[in-house]
């Protein structure tokens, strides 16, 4: 049995979602046994937070084959929602979090309608423009956002339980990713999911079979925006401080890199991609001034030698070895 192939189900969904979800849940449960300090919890929480955003973007890119270079814009909306809501509007943090997700969905719907008509490079540039625009708004509306200096994110309180500490955020982020993965796997094996994957291969054939391509693209764009918004809210809350960089261009590129590096259309790939791009910079600090060069070389090497992304490439290689 090729275990990695089972971990790579998004492109070839089966009924057995649990084959992926149960090991993932066990992994999440056991991982803290390796943690010797709060720092590990924090890094792992960040990995899962970015994995949520990457997974959402993977639905758009890996499923429907549509690129977005502006998804950090939705992270920014989520992050500023949990900041501005309680600070300026007196809205409770949890409610602000939900409002942020809803606002991201509405913005994605309004922005997506015109720009999802565009294809490939044109869509990439249009989404890029959207991300830059969001970052500019957060930078310029200093009265609300604190401008380029950013602002403090109020803590999240559930009932009387004040959520603080890396440990709590590890569990919130990891379980959220697990739920996000379950939803993504459900989508893969559903009428909408099949239609999206069909669009990826041939829009013309999908249309001729009755698939409303524009509508399906819009739906997945909205869903992926909600994933990014939730990740952005968590990111603001765990850091306790937020600047417009959360929605910046580099963030968007980072999300795309996570998707491609981990593997387009792979749930676990999103987690692996996020892990590589969150952990490596931390691990590479031993290279001091050269850490960015080393990071770039590693990413380039991965794409040269595992060109379908880490998880799908390893799954395929393992499958071949078994077959011999």
């Amino acid at each position, binding site marked *: 049995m090729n275990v990695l192939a089972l971990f790579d189900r998004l492109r070839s969904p089966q009924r057995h979602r649990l084959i992926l979800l149960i090991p993932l849940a066990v992994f999440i449960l056991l991982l803290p046994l390796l943690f010797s300090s709060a720092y590990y919890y924090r890094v792992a929480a960040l990995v899962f937070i970015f994995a949520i955003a990457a997974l959402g973007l993977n639905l758009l890119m890996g499923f429907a084959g549509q690129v977005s270079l502006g998804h950090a814009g939705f992270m920014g909306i989520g992050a500023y929602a949990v900041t501005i809501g309680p600070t300026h509007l007196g809205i409770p943090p949890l409610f602000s979090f939900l409002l942020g997700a809803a606002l991201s969905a509405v913005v994605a719907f309004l922005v997506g309608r015109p720009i999802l008509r565009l294809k490939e490079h044109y869509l990439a540039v249009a989404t890029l423009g959207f991300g830059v625009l969001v970052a500019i708004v957060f930078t310029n509306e200093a009265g609300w956002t604190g401008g380029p200096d950013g602002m403090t994110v109020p803590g999240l309180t559930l009932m009387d339980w004040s959520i603080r500490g890396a440990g709590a955020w590890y569990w919130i982020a990891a379980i959220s990713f697990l739920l996000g993965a379950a939803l993504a796997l459900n989508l893969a094996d559903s009428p909408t999911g099949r239609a999206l994957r069909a669009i990826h291969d041939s829009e013309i054939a999908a249309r001729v079979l*009755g698939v409303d391509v524009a509508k399906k693209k819009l739906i997945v764009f909205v869903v992926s925006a909600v994933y990014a918004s939730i990740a952005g809210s968590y990111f603001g809350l765990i850091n306790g401080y937020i600047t417009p960089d959360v929605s910046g261009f580099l963030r968007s590129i980072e999300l795309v890199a996570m998707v491609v590096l981990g593997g387009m259309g792979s749930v676990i790939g999103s987690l692996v991609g996020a892990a590589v791009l969150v952990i490596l910079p931390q691990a590479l600090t031993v290279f001091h001034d050269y850490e960015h060069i080393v990071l770039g070389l590693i990413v380039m090497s991965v794409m040269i030698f595992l060109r379908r992304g880490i998880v799908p490439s390893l799954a395929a290689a393992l499958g071949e070895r078994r077959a011999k």
Partner: protein
Amino acid sequence: MIVLSAEGLSVAFGGVRAADNVSFDVEPGIVFSIIGPNGAGKTTLFNVISGLCPPDDGRVWFYGENVTALAPEQLARRGLSRTFQNLQIFSHLTVIENVMVGRHRHEATGIIADLLHLPAVARQNRRTREAAAEALARVGLADLAQRPASGLAYGNLKRLEIARALASEPKVLLLDEPAAGCNPVERREIENIIRGIVGNGITVVLVEHDMRLVMNVSNRIHVLANGRTLAEGTAADVRSNLAVIEAYLGVHRTQETAGAVG
């Protein structure tokens, strides 16, 4: 009763008139073939009828409704389906998943239900899978259902496209060169498949270069040359029509008449 009708269709690409005032009526339950030399405008006509290419002039009628301005997905929902000459397979999907996409217009679950995998989605998936398996069996691909579509041989891909179109339960099916690139055995299979489709009450509009296939299965044949209508009639009418013979073979009639004329 006319199921599909073209009324004065004209399309030009730059200076080339791909279709020039083409009109025809298709009666229900027949095989209606459109033939003509390469570049006669057959595929263009298919693209116009299926909503992929708006005509410069003229109208398309589907069951008495003017569908000229409709998008392909709207036509699909009214019961028009088609295959493609240059295959349009969903290569990352399995064979059966390809056909399951063909069921899309019969699927009625929303995005929230799909994300949560509500029982309605599970039931829908089961129904879709059963109908898709049935369509695959009709073209003889049942054994390959779980294979990745990208690994299929060319002739099987042709049949997969037909199964996918059939799964949508069309009233009218446009087949764009289903026998192109097929060997004689595969061609006979395609012929049987077409007979089976018509036997199930589906009207077939066929574009095909293989004259033996066309002459065998067609109830009516519409001949195009350089975007214009040359003739229309039964196989016998067309075979004896001098203008057609000239367009295909030049003035001298040869033994190739019965063979595959490309």
